């Protein structure tokens, strides 16, 4: 774990609104594990203030281009332009200064990939699944189920195919692959391979549906979760998620940045309802106490 003041190596649009950025990242090839993320500072000014969390798509190195230059380690991230930070990111070019804090968090448990594996992802959720697929010893036993609203949201299919992983594509509007939800495909595939372990990352409704399916079929599931993050290192306690057995009397809050972002689904509380709080203040100024 380190903060690198580094530079962008390349930045390309791969599908409308989706970009792939390569960043010089010393040590990441050795250290980064599938499912981990970085806190990315999009420029060295105080605007935007906070770093943005991004999953590591892959780590690699470019061989030395001449004798005097050492090989360059890099990581790639894939991001969707959604707001102020990613808007700045899409305008970055080779050589632009950025900062990388990481690799952070707990990744996927590779021991679980020894048998049949199913990787379920929607949209940008495919990012950490790619590095997982790369690390699976026998890719022919892995399948990746890719879902999205329409064809623009379907990214990285060829990348997965190149790894020798079988891909299943579905879109809600039928503009690419099968018509319907990726979770429907998951149900079908689990009929064929009932012993498979499932790894999922994507929008919350998808994650919830995947969890339900896996629970009802008794299938082991690891999920990668997203929460708003300020620090990424377990200090601010902004990114918590409710753990298994959480109640207001016996709270079990887990830091998504430290314990996660990848969790065993069985370690989380899924009966969660979205409860807005009552009116009180923030930490420091009135601490938001609810008694």
């Amino acid at each position: 774990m380190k903060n690198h003041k580094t530079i962008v190596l390349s930045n390309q649009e791969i599908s409308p609104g989706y970009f792939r950025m390569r960043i010089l990242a010393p040590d990441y090839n050795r250290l980064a594990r599938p499912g981990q993320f970085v806190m990315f500072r999009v420029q060295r000014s105080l605007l935007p203030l906070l770093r943005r969390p991004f999953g590591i798509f892959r780590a690699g190195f470019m061989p030395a281009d001449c004798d005097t230059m050492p090989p360059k380690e890099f990581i790639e991230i894939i991001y969707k332009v959604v707001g102020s930070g990613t808007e700045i990111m899409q305008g970055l070019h080779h050589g632009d200064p950025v900062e990388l804090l990481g690799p952070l968090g707990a990744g996927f448990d590779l021991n679980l990939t020894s048998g049949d594996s199913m990787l379920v992802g929607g949209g940008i959720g495919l990012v950490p699944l790619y590095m997982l697929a790369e690390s699976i010893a026998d890719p022919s036993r892995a399948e990746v189920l890719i879902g999205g609203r329409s064809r623009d949201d379907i990214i990285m299919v060829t990348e997965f195919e190149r790894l020798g992983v079988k891909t299943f594509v579905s879109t809600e509007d039928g503009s690419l692959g099968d018509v319907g939800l990726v979770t429907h495909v998951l149900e079908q595939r689990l009929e064929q391979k009932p012993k498979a372990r499932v790894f999922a990352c994507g929008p919350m409704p998808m994650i919830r549906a995947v969890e339900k399916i896996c629970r009802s079929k008794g299938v082991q599931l690891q999920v990668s979760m997203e929460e708003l993050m300020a620090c990424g290192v377990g200090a601010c306690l902004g990114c918590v998620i409710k753990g298994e057995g959480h109640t207001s009397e016996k709270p079990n809050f887990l830091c998504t940045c430290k314990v996660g972002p990848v969790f065993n689904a069985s370690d989380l509380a899924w009966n969660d309802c979205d409860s807005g709080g009552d009116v009180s203040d923030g930490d420091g100024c009135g601490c938001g106490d609810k008694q």
Partner: protein
Amino acid sequence: MKRREKIDKTVHLQVDIAGIRLKNPIMPASGTFGYGEEYAPYLDLNSLGAIVTKGLSLHPKAGNNTPRVCETVGGMLNAIGLQNVGIEHFIYQKMPFLKQFDTPVIVNFFGNTQEEYGEVAARLDELPGVAGLEMNISCPNVKHGGIVFGTDPKAAFATVAAVRKKTSKPLIVKLTPNVTDIQVTARAVEEAGADAISLINTLTGMAVDVKTRRPRLANTIGGLSGPAIRPIAVRLVHQVVQAVKVPVIGIGGISRAMDALEFLIVGATAVQVGTANFVDPNAMATIIADLETFCLAEGVDDINELIGSLKV
């Protein structure tokens, strides 16, 4: 020859807060630095003036629902809800780590009632390795309709006086800026026995998602921190320095040495760095180095010369 002289010169950065000797005036702000260990991979904790812990209470506290944080222009809102491991867990699980460093540990704490404040202070008083206590009075008093202790000078006085009886360690009282006249609160806590005053805690704020029309924080209201609040914080520190004799620690939006210097010049003896740690985990190390560079460039041998040197 002349150049060499300049390089060899060192600046005296040591300051003293109520008997706590700090190597330099830079320390983290409570709640932005965890229990120290979270940032140890990025920063040498021995280089800091002090380490200030997340706010602790008698019993562990769960905190609020998410979303708990939200970025705003030049700042952020938080409503963590003072989640913490509780004083006992801190003593057995977190304190041993902090003791390894040659850096004073200041424990930030709070209570839901006046009695609870007293109990935590008494427990901390027994602990070797705790250099000082920082009392967060920006909390609602659950016995009195949730009125924030620090917004009522009488309640602030009574609570600080109760804590004062329980500890002989240096007691820093941390003020909320959400009051009409900060000088009244500052005098009240000084009179009640505070050895030092730190400020500011976060300013209450709110942000709305216009698409969903929901507040951006689950708690609706949160505390604003970061560069956006600095001018308000400098003004409040300036006012408090005028009102009290005890040393003052300046907090609010410090991200660079220049920011820290503003607080020192208006009269803060030391400063705390909060939100900037999230932006750059190495921020405090950079600030310390740049303070030294500034002093060398300005011909200042001792940082204490700068403290309260405001020309008006």
